């Protein structure tokens, strides 16, 4: 086997002189689902933003490699074309741009295949919408404009199904969702989970992990991964909380 | 009716070398310097006319400049009859057409607050006056009436709040002008030093039916992390003519709460300019105006953003009734480099009966790109639905209207951090609702 698909190496990042990530190391292979947990303010969302290339964050050290290629110099759209997808914790509203128009533009940009006719595209879109148990009128609404929390998250998954990424980062996609919405969102993600996809599932709650089964679990505290393990770690975390990790292992400890 | 004022006649002819010498009599140092500069500037500036954008809706010819008496400096007098407001403040300044008096309620307790007539301030605070008089707060220097005030002010005060001191009850300046055809040209300088907190309240009164004129100017400096509240309660009688040009400059992390309540006067023309000059400076500007009978209230505001990360929030609410007329004209100006600015301006108007008129001219002048500026303006009468609701609960039409007008203004009145003053303003608004 060649290089691992995703390699995050000694990643340091800051925002406005405030260091957030202080040396994150993470390796994800295709076909794997990695869950990343951690208390508020530990840097989980920063990591997802840095992976996607948010301009407000500055990487001061380290690399993110996809298939061996360092992507840190790439613009967000170039990363998307490489197959990176971020499901936003707080999706942004774009008034005046319809869902359909946006998805078609993104689809054409990422796949560079404008030969897929509008008809075929719409057909697939309709299927996906149905699969996510959304109303078809959705596609004529303005992107995320006036959407409820659950609608926004489903919108993210719809985009993911449309763009078919090879590396999906889910940034607290589960927060604020009721049990039905959570089930639907998970169903959407699971549809793509398989040998061609690497997933980094960032979450605050273990609840979603009963729907999307992780192969590995990592705990991020103060900008570093302090603990990694298998799915059995979930239960332990749930019972003992993050303070246990802080006390038990201190920083730098990896199982 | 267009009246072009002539320098050569009446009042304007009166503001000549002699008047200047009279006003400046015995004055020295920076005050005299500034007067002299201002006099030159004043003479070189044309008189405003209806053709000037700013005066298009308030004919300068309507001001009876010819009628007011000759300019006389106001000297110190014994403290006049007390008002029920007086005991609520640390220091009270009373100004009449006879002169001024200052009363200190602090019983010797030093609280970092200094209140002096301008001429006395010269001795102890000469350097500070040099920095503050006609200082950087005056954003527009080619203004006839700001220069007129600087050249001819006949009563003036300096309020200084020392670094890191908090003044609890603050200063009251109350004007009670009873003389017929009196002319008052007051000047106020307020300097809140770094980390200080203070409140200045001004109260203007004159008897109804009595002609008088007030041409005021204020300069306020709010230094780093200082907080200044300035409340101006204008209840001139219906014979009063007022022109006021006021300026404030807020430094880093500083904040001004500037509340202007215009209830009185026959004609009032005001300019209020505030510069949020350094990062994280905040300006809250609020206004209440109510023109009834034949009152005419015209006010212009400027929120100037000169630095990144500066904030301003303006809300001016007005009502016009009978044949009253109001003009609100506001500008948010964001210069180059004023990024991450958040500025807001809202003007809401009630037009309470046919025959009344309100004009609203909000404005944005934006030269920077990374910011958020917005403004809004509404006009309308009381909501019929709300009236109906109140009446269905047994209120008479008059009572229901009264309640809704008061409710409309409550948002501004509540900004006065002084319940006694709030009650007073509510009562005054109530009286005007009739």
């Amino acid at each position, binding site marked *: 086997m060649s290089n691992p698909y995703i390699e995050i190496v000694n990643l340091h990042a800051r925002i406005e002189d405030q260091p957030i990530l202080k040396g994150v190391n993470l390796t994800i292979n295709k076909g794997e689902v990695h869950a990343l947990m951690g208390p508020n303010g530990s840097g989980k969302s920063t990591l997802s933003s840095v992976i996607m290339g948010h301009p407000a964050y500055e990487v001061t050290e380290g690399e993110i490699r996809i298939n061996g290629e360092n992507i840190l110099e790439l613009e967000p759209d170039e990363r998307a074309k490489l197959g990176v997808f971020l499901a936003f914790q707080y999706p942004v509203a774009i008034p005046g741009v319809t869902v359909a128009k946006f998805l078609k533009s993104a689809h054409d940009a990422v796949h560079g295949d404008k030969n897929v006719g509008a008809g075929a595209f719409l057909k697939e879109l309709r299927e996906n919408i149905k699969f996510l148990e959304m109303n078809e009128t959705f596609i004529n609404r303005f992107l995320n404009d006036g959407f409820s929390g659950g609608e926004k998250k489903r919108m993210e998954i719809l985009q993911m199904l449309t763009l078919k990424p090879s590396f999906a980062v889910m940034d607290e996609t589960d927060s604020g969702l009721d049990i039905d919405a959570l089930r639907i969102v998970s169903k959407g993600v699971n549809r793509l989970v398989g040998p061609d996809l690497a997933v980094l599932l960032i979450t605050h709650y273990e609840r979603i992990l009963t729907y999307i089964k992780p192969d590995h679990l990592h705990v991020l505290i103060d900008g570093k991964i302090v603990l990694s393990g298998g799915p059995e770690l979930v239960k332990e975390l749930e019972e003992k909380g993050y303070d246990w990790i802080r006390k038990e292992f201190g920083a730098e400890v990896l199982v | 009716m267009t009246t072009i004022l002539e320098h050569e006649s009446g009042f304007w002819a009166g503001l000549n070398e002699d008047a200047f010498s009279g006003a400046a009599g015995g004055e020295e140092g920076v005050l005299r310097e500034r007067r002299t500069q201002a006099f030159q500037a004043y003479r070189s500036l044309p008189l405003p006319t209806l053709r000037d954008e700013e005066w298009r809706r308030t004919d300068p010819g309507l001001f009876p400049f010819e009628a007011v008496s000759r300019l006389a400096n106001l000297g110190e007098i014994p403290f006049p009859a007390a008002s029920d407001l007086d005991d609520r403040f640390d220091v009270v300044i009373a100004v009449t057409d006879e002169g001024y008096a200052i009363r200190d309620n602090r019983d010797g307790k030093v609280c970092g607050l200094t209140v002096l007539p301008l001429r006395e301030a010269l001795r102890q605070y000469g350097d500070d006056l040099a920095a503050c008089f006609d200082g950087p707060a005056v954003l527009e220097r080619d203004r006839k009436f700001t220069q007129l005030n600087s050249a001819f002010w006949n009563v003036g005060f300096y309020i200084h709040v020392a670094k890191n001191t908090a003044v609890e009850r603050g200063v009251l300046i109350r004007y009670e002008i009873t003389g017929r055809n009196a002319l008052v040209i007051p000047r106020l300088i307020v300097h809140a030093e770094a980390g200080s907190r203070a409140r200045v309240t001004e109260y203007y009164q004159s008897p109804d039916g009595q002609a008088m004129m007030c041409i005021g100017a204020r300069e306020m400096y709010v230094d780093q992390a200082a907080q200044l509240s300035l409340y101006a309660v204008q209840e001139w009688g219906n014979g009063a003519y007022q022109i006021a040009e006021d300026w404030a400059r807020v430094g880093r992390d500083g904040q001004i709460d500037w509340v202007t309540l215009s209830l009185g006067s026959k004609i009032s023309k005001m300019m209020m300019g505030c510069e949020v000059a350094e990062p994280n400076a905040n300006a809250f500007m609020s206004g209440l105006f109510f023109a009834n009978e034949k009152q005419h209230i015209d006010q212009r505001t400027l929120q100037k953003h000169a630095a990144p990360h500066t904030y301003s929030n303006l809300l001016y609410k007005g009502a016009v009734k009978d044949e009253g007329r109001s003009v609100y004209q506001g500008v948010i100006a964001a210069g180059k480099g004023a990024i991450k600015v958040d500025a807001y301006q809202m003007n809401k108007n009630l037009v309470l009966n*046919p025959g009344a008129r309100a*004009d609203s001219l909000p404005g944005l002048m934006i030269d920077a790109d*990374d910011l958020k500026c917005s403004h809004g303006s509404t*006009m309308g009468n009381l909501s019929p639905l709300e009236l109906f609701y109140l009446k269905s609960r047994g209120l008479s039409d008059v009572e229901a209207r009264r309640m809704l007008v008061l409710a409309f203004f409550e948002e501004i009145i509540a900004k006065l951090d002084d319940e006694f003053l709030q009650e007073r303003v509510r009562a005054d608004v109530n009286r005007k609702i009739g």
Partner: protein
Amino acid sequence: MPTLETNSTLVRDEYKYGFSTDVPTESFEKGLNEEVIRAISAKKNEPEWMTEWRLKAFRRWLNMKEPQWADVSYPPIDYQDICYFSAPKLENNPEVDEELKRTFERLGVPMHERDRLAGVAVDAVFDSVSVGTTHKEMLAEKGIIFCSISEAIQEHPELVKKYLGTVVPQGDNFFAALNSAVFTDGSFCYIPKGVRCPVELSTYFRINAVDTGQFERTLIVCEDDAYVSYIEGCTAPSRDRNQLHAAVVELIALEGAEIKYSTVQNWYAGDEEGRGGIYNFVTKRGHCRGRKSKISWTQVEVGSAITWKYPSVVLEGDDSVGEFYSVAFTNRKMQADTGTKMVHVGRNTKSTIVSKGISAGRSRNSYRGLVQILPGADNARNHTQCDSMLIGDTCTANTYPVIECENSTAITEHEATTSKISEEQMFYITSRGIDEESATSLIVNGFCKEVFKELPMEFSVEAVKLLELKLEHSVG
């Protein structure tokens, strides 16, 4: 990292309408006096009353001053250095006719009947004259008159006499007076009582000759319960000298009538340094004379070196409705001072204003508006939304609304915002693989959506494309 700084070397949208047409023309000597006006009138074989009308306007104009209040600056215009009449030599010259038709084809305006766009009748104005109107017979069957204003003066003098100058009086402003004196052509539409015009009527204005001013005059009258949708388009060759376009458009809607007037203005805007381009000083006003009449202006302004234009509606009839939808895009060194006036005279009158300004490059973009509620306008309503978007930090966006209310039963609401494209929006869209330029265009088109949807379908598509073209290279 996505940033939105303007890279001035990239602000270089190709103006594809910048070619010029080489045809034999007849042009007057430069200069303006009563002789020139008589000559224009004679050239058009006008009746005496028309000549006199022009001369009266000219005499007024002599005593008027050019307005200075707008937020635009330009060197003084020498009105004696302009040619006031230029026309291609058409008589017995089929080649010229064909050349002109080719010009309009190249501009995307179908002049041959065989190519005509379904649903659109076209009048084409080339410099000072109309060179052809399509669909005439079909329209005539319905009693609709659609022809050049010159033809209308000959063929329908009673209608022209009755309505010309009644909405925009000769002395309304400096440029209106000038236009009244020297106008050379433009369109005339008359929709009789109860008729809904079955096709869009369209005029395409083309300035071709050098140093020639274009002074078009358009008059649209809708009788009771009639309806028309009218579209105008404008282009000019790229030339390094400024040219003046001072039009007057008058709309009259009688009882129950509706006029929808759409403009896509893409005059040459000058080069990167602000050399050349059209001065677009235009007076457009509609008069809702009858009860329940409606006038709606939609404009997409993407061209001209300077725009000075305030399409307005006087709402005199009770229950009448006025609308103004505008997109004004400026880049390079363009200056736009545009907006509207809604004058509420009658009862239950309603007006809506939606203005979207986009500034890029070193341009200046101002909204100026007046909402006037007169004492008799019981229950008048106005809603105004003005949004400005800045692209880069070397441009300016100003908003100068005036609201005057003299009626206590009226309600007006005005909202305005100025912002830039937010970093978060940009990041979100680019994270889906869409490049920065396309992302900007998506956001801007979304920003303008409310206005574009008011345009007739095919023009809406055109407008979106045009704006996209203009935006290309405006961000780098």
